[in-house]
């Protein structure tokens, strides 16, 4: 393989994200069914892709047990009706599961091993509460390999506030409010809906149909946010309002080599430029996207100023603020999370990476003046992940205007 193969993002879809728990719309829906329906929805939208040409199916989940176990990529492929000849596997990198599905499949395509691949993720946090069934090695604490806060994501976010006192609670709340407002506006403008796959949901009241995210609270006010409890510390800064919630949802996207996309006449929404993952101290895991982004930029030979659009996972407002602050970007820079983010939409852990990509892809189409964009997210136990994409709609003339 002398030359690197071009890797393109053909299309991505997701289920509407639900609120986790008994009252959530997916309480009676299996996790594997969510990701299976994302895959069938993806294939239906791309009828010119022959199922047997899919070289692999990578599906991520953080808790790989029960309906999220049993080698999800393979079982989901079979359940989605893909030919038995299509292989599949499961991936886990906590919050960056789907992102890692994409980079792993993208790498295989780039190496020339694959032509077409499905990458996605699912997390049913109602059926699989965070941390359920985990058995951390006692050495983590006995040898002080990580601080006690490292395994509690809310506590890690409080630690960022500690480290950077200038990131006040009010600043986090303002960021969170804008996220809610941007999501509401994006829904109003019909920006979110096109990539949603409707899901039949069963409840004590009979069958229904999930067609929108369940978590957004467009009625949110700054006063309301200010009054919320801080569950991770007395008089802390992290609240349910300035963090992403506990959610259920699934995503799936189709990646292809440039050659296969051309051969099958597939439209290209984004081109993969580079990616990187990086580690930080687990107790400030929210800082992870900073080093991963620097690494990805370096690999791509780009600088932060080359990036015209950002899709950052809003695990916590303070964690996004730390990223923006590091790179000298305003909290309300219009290039960042144009449609809002996880604080409003929700963050079903291992599924979120592809949601960021779906939204960046839509924005690329609307912004021919932008050449590069990036998707980035923080990851539990102190990691960050970044993927840099090129806009195939980029137009020099538009850029000059």
């Amino acid at each position: 393989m002398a030359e690197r193969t071009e890797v393109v993002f053909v299309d991505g879809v997701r289920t509407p994200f639900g609120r986790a728990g008994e009252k959530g719309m997916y309480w009676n829906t299996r996790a594997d069914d969510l990701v299976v329906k994302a895959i069938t929805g993806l294939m239906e939208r791309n009828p010119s892709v022959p199922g047997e040409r899919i070289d692999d199916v990578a599906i991520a989940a953080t808790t790989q047990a029960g309906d999220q176990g049993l080698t999800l990529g393979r079982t989901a492929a079979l359940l989605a009706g893909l030919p038995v000849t299509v292989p599949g596997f499961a991936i886990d990198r906590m919050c960056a599961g789907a992102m890692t599905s994409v980079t792993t499949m993208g790498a295989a395509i780039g190496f020339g091993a694959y032509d077409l691949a499905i990458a996605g993720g699912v997390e049913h946090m109602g059926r699989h509460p965070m941390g359920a069934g985990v058995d951390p090695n006692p050495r983590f604490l006995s040898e002080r390999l990580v601080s006690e806060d490292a395994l509690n994501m809310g506590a890690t976010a409080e630690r960022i506030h500690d480290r950077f006192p200038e990131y006040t609670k009010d600043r986090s709340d303002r960021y969170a409010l804008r996220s809610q407002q941007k999501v509401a506006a994006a829904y109003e403008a019909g920006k979110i809906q096109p990539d949603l796959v409707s899901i039949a949901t069963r409840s004590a009241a009979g069958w229904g149909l999930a067609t929108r995210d369940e978590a957004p609270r467009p009625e949110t006010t700054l006063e309301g946010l200010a009054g919320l409890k801080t569950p991770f510390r007395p008089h802390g800064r992290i609240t349910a309002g300035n963090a992403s919630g506990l959610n259920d949802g699934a995503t799936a996207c189709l990646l292809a080599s440039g050659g296969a996309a051309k051969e099958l006449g597939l439209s290209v929404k984004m081109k993969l430029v580079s990616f990187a993952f990086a580690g930080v101290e687990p107790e400030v895991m929210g800082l992870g996207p900073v080093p991963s982004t620097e690494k990805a930029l370096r690999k791509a030979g780009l600088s932060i100023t080359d990036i015209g659009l950002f899709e950052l996972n809003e695990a916590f407002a303070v964690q996004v603020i730390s990223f923006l602050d590091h790179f000298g970007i305003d909290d309300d820079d219009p290039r960042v999370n144009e449609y809002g983010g996880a604080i409003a939409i929700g963050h079903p852990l291992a599924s979120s990476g592809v949601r960021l990509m779906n939204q960046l892809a839509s924005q690329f189409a609307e912004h021919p003046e932008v050449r590069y964009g990036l998707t980035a997210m923080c990851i539990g136990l102190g990691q960050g992940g970044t993927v840099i994409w090129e806009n195939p709609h980029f137009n020099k003339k538009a850029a000059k205007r």
Partner: protein
Amino acid sequence: MTSTTSTPIDYATVDFSPLVVVSGDEVVTHSLVRDVPLSGGRTLALLTLDNGRDHTRPNTLGPVTLLEFSAVMDELTARAGRGEIHGVAVTGKPFILAAGADLSKVSEIPSREVGKLLAQLGHFSLGKLSTLGVPSFVFINGLALGGGLEVALNADYRTVDESVPAIALPEVFLGLIPGWGGSYLLPNLVGIENALKVIVENPLKNNRTLTGPDALKLGIADTMFRSVTFLEDSIRWADGVIAGNVTVSRPNAPGKIERLVKWDAAIGIARKMLESRIGTVAASPYAALDLIKAAKSGTKAEAFAREDDALADLISGDQLPASIYSFNLVQKRAKRPAGAPDKALARPIGKVGVIGAGLMASQFALLFVRRLKVPVVITDLDQARVDKGVAYIHGEIQTLQDKGRISSDEANRLRALVTGTTDKADFADADWVIEAVFEELGVKQDVFAEIEKHISPTAVLATNTSSLSVEQIGAKLAHPERLVGFHFFNPVAVMPLIEVVNTPTTDEATLSTAMVIAAKLRKNAVITRDTPGFVVNRVLAKLLGEAMHAVDTGTPFEVVNGALASFGLPMTPFELLELVGLKVGAHVLDTHHAAFPDRFFESTNLHRLAEHGKILDRNSSGKITGFDKGAVKIVAGGTTPITAEQILRRVEDGLADEIKRMLDDDVVHAPEDIDLCMLLGAGWPFQMGGITPYLDRVGASERVFGGTFHTPMVRGVGSAAPASSTPVLS
């Protein structure tokens, strides 16, 4: 069947409360409604039928359920009128749309009038799907039987999930008719021939059901979607229909020509088929035919009124209770055999030995290897017979593979499991040894005594004898406690019954093993005592002995042949004799006469007929054309003929007497077991309830022993019950 003209009435004026009175413990299937957004700002009201139980307790439609559905339909009609909803769709809980009317309630209906209310309530309630003011849809997501399918037929459009295993109108199988619109709506949706297939033919073919793809092909469903996104796709399709983007074509819907030319002819053909297959005793298939015939023309209201009357007649008649009784025996009692010991006592079976390599033995070997999937070894006197037996079994396995019933891997596996030997030592590790050798006591005794030297001390021995004493067969065994009777019916692969014969020496582990094996063979087992003929052959011997005796004493074949027509048996006595073989038949009569000389007739004539070879004349296609002249000559000479009525009376009373004796002697524990044996082992009809409900209702039981087999009797509320044992109905 009442022949008065049915007049449509306004169902809204009917008081259905008498039905609610008998529905105290109904498991109500609720009508749950949620709104679903459609394109263009429109809304679909999605109604889920859900009884709140899991799929093992399917949704059923009782009176309270129907009244709730009706009330919800009224609300939806009002909402449609206000422009709040633009369509209504009905679907079910996972795997189940609905399994039809709740038949457990039918026996509690106190009168024909209340029975009619049940028909009317179904029409009243389900009929509202066609008067909502907006399009109605049913998404057939799972099991849809009887009234469950009629829910769908009453709607404007239907989708079906391609994985649905069972869609059917099985009413005729149970002595009913599709009475909530099905008899009218289905032929007008899918055409006369398809409707006849679904309503009449399939129920009589062992209650055959349709799959999702079948339903699509027949035109019952307008479109089909795969399971993974069935509901999502159905909603999207309904959205398209409502928006006008999807047009629905129904190529099977009957046109003018079909109504003018094909309709009555198809009914005529179906009627002939019915008459030749099941005779004319069973009422419901003919009631269904009449309704389907009338569905050719007239209004829906008129058709519904006809269904109301037909259903009321059947619900209050004798055949429906007997059919439901039979259905429960076959569905429930057969699954939990009376007197079966703890399954945990059963010995594990890792290898099967079959003594004999003839046709019967080979059929056993094939059945055992297919169902148990353990090594099966067959043996016979010489290598040539053994080779022939193995070759037969391999051939049958090949046939199964060629038909696509088993994969090539499975065929290889089964072939490799079947071996033949002339060395009895190869039986050493067999856990179950069954014999199918000549029906002679000495032969069977010796065969078992010989094999016992080779087998392990815990191996179970089974004999397929039909007429010998199982205990006697074990007389030369060192361990007779390991011997059990295991009586199959011919053809072995098809007939669902095994009589498991429990001798005084059979131990619990052996009996349990036999019961567990029978279940693994997917047969229904009934435990009987070791008495002559066990159950099925003893009852048949009584009937056939009486028939032959009438012939022997001078009654013409024709008279005897038609004398039992009111039973509605699948075959006349002489057809049955020819089916089992005249020689076997004569032998069966002999053994019973030998055992009970004062109650069972032997027939020298039958031996002579067996020598002659036939009784009936048949044309080239096997259809019976009359009686063979030679046969008639052989039996000539009797001087005291009796009438058909006398024969019928003798057979009815004789059966009542014999069955009472069998029960008093504890051959089986209950009349239910006798009936189960006759239903499964002899194919006696549901409408007779096997035999004992029939004997009760014709008064034979009362005449013979001054009582009844069942209290209350199994009969309809509309019948004139004998005064002595009128069932008490509240």
